[in-house]
């Protein structure tokens, strides 16, 4: 467990840190909405620290449409996760740097565990927000269809009244997948190196 990482794998871990840095510059996920009246589409990007419209005024326009069915407005300030997610990612980058300087195999296990934990928690949290937005509707809303909920999908597309809502990973999301793959590769290669040397 305390075995040193190979030189190449050390640099791969440094790469992981660099890739994670990308999360500050690219959105994790995006939600795209299309409707007959919105052929050009409306959409929003979810970052680790903010939520933005695909177009300059998309967020405002999505909220305007959502108010007809009584959904809460999507406002950055209402989502506390944006406040601490940057620190969580910073912690992971720090972990990568420490692993680079102190290249031990167990550190890589820890890193992967951390990543999977944060990833799973993040997806669950995203689902929970979507669930709440889609289910907690203002009973006084102009359009009220009994039994209808407006929870967007986590991954894939879903028809919600006249709007088709699609949710997919953005560049940041793919970075996370890549980071997971790199960590798995490091572990497997370290492991096979270990067995080969035995």
């Amino acid at each position, binding site marked *: 467990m305390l075995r040193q990482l190979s030189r190449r794998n050390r640099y791969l871990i440094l790469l992981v840190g660099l890739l994670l840095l990308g999360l500050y510059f690219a959105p994790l996920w995006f939600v795209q909405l299309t409707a007959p009246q919105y052929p050009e589409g409306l959409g929003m990007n979810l970052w680790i620290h903010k939520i933005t419209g695909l177009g*300059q*005024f998309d967020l*405002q*326009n999505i909220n*305007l449409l959502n108010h*007809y069915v009584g959904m809460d407005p999507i406002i950055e300030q209402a989502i506390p996760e944006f406040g601490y997610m940057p620190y969580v990612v910073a912690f992971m980058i720090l972990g990568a740097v420490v692993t680079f300087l102190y290249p031990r195999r167990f550190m890589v296990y820890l890193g992967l565990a951390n990543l999977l934990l944060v990833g799973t928690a993040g997806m669950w949290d995203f689902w929970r927000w979507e669930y709440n937005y889609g289910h907690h509707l203002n009973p006084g809303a*102009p*359009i009220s269809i009994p039994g209808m909920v407006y929870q967007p999908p986590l991954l894939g597309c879903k028809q919600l009244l006249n709007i088709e809502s699609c949710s997919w990973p953005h560049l940041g999301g793919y970075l996370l997948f890549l980071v997971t793959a790199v960590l798995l590769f490091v572990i497997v290669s370290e492991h096979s190196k270990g067995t080969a040397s035995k």
Partner: protein
Amino acid sequence: MRHTLFRWSLVLCIASAVVASVALTHCSKGGSNSNILASDAAKRVYVAPGQKDEFYWFMSGGYSGQVAVYAIPSGRLIKQIPVFSLFPEDGYGIEEETKDMLLTSHGYIPWGDAHHPEASMTKGVQDGRWLFINENNTPRIARIDLKSFSTAEIIEIPNTSGNHASPFSTENSEYLMSATRFSYPIPQKDVSVQDSEKGVLNGSISMIKVDPTSGRMSIALQILVPGYDYDISHCGKGPSHDWCFFSTYNTEQAHKMLEIEASKNDKDYILAFNWKKAEQCLADGKAKDFSGVYYTNFHPENKATIAEKHSGVKMITNPADCSGMMYYLPTPKSPHGADVDPSGEYIVGGGKLASLIPVHSFEKLQKAINDKSNYIKVVDGIPVLKYESTLAGEVQKPCLGPLHTEFDGLGYAYTSCFITSEVVKWKLGTWEVVDRIPVYYSIGHLSIAGGDSAKPIAKYLIALNKITKDRYLPVGPEVTQSAQLIDISGSKMKMLLDFPTIGEPHYAQGIPASLLAENSQKIFILAENENPYAVKNEKDARVERDGKTVHVYMTSIRSHFKPDVVEVKVGDTVYFHVTNLEQDYDIDHGFAVYGAPTSNILIMPGETKTMRYEATKEGIYPFYCTDFCSALHQEMQQYLRVTK
């Protein structure tokens, strides 16, 4: 006897049957103008649902005072731009922000007669920034912004009457030219028209400067010229960059029964005007301070119109004071068009009562003015040159009533012929007619995209006809005007489409969609709204009273106005300043108040507009959104309460 009568009637009958059948065959040939299969034509103009056209075509609305925008080749009307006439559809010229656009030195005028759209140009080619158009009746020129497709500025031209030869642009839109069609006393005064000596009624040429960055227009210089009727102009390009050309009629200077008295001379003139020379004479102090009151009305984006009254212009009162500036080129007979080919070498006169089309050569003109033996006489300091000295050639027997000429850039010219109702295609240089096509009926102007510029697009020609008669389902005595789309991409012209137009389109400008569509404005950015009455947040919606004046700072967004109920008193003057908080394309809101003696106002996303309302009687007056904006549009209704 009876027998003979019978035989004669039989002969007559047969004869008339033959005549009728010939006439019918002839008619059916003309009527279906079957030089192209209907299905082929349909394919050429069919723009499938969801697809877009290749060209914007800006057509003057004539006596509607507006500009109509058509999509070509489909011929669909896609916009009416209000310019010189008020427009209740969106409140232009009525609501507070734009009503001063229609101010003139004669007061507020709710109507105008729009004639010639002209595109702004760089190096003789349309640059897609602005469209200019003249008002003939109360002389004015408007500048339309081609991002917002709205009128940005109107300048009144003083010392001018019948602003017809206008607004023709120099090669880089340095200046717009403008001239009097109706000579009159300059400065204005009472004279005896019928008995007046020649010279009592004058003409004038105006140079309107266009600021190259802002587009703002100003009157740079005016020149007093003999009182002929200056009809149409076009400016030079390339070698003739420094020059503009104006056709004239009524060189007889008749002031009654012009249809007879003004058609006597065998030749009238085309005025060749060296505007660079005029610019130099102005700089040299040869222009005098001259009277003249006029307005400039500027509508900055999303603000109230700034209407300014000006007094005084610079005037060259005698063309002799600036020698080399002007020459008259004799041109048969009462010429209408004065059109310059893409190379800038040929100046084509449309001899409206002539049976030929005279073409002047710019090169020959340059030689002729340097040789005084070519001067026939001098009128008010303007030399009249020998016809032959500037003539490049004549198109013989092209048609009757040649009016206007446009070019395809491939060496051909297309001339509209009013009397014979046709378009004639002829070759520059050989002056041979190569093709002709009938149009329905009595064509005035014709238009090719860039057809008056240095770079025409030889694809479509639009015939702008004056008489419509039986082309559409009859709708009472007044019918629309008719335009016809003609394919000019091949060697033979092909008729593609008829479509009705608004008012009476005189000239038109076709501009490629690729030059304008990308820049077309979708919304006004609310954060950049500098209207002093704008409200950018619903929380700031309020009513402010200042004596008997009440300002309602109102917001509109799907699907309500704020404040909810507006309360005022009898005798109040109420200003509803409505800001549309939306930032979504095509989500306009309208605003109308029960009993308001104005129009509705239409407010674009991010825009503020103001309606003035006099509260005269107590009661409850509903107001509502007039532009269907959302699923809850019908619910967008509230109340104005007027109390004692």
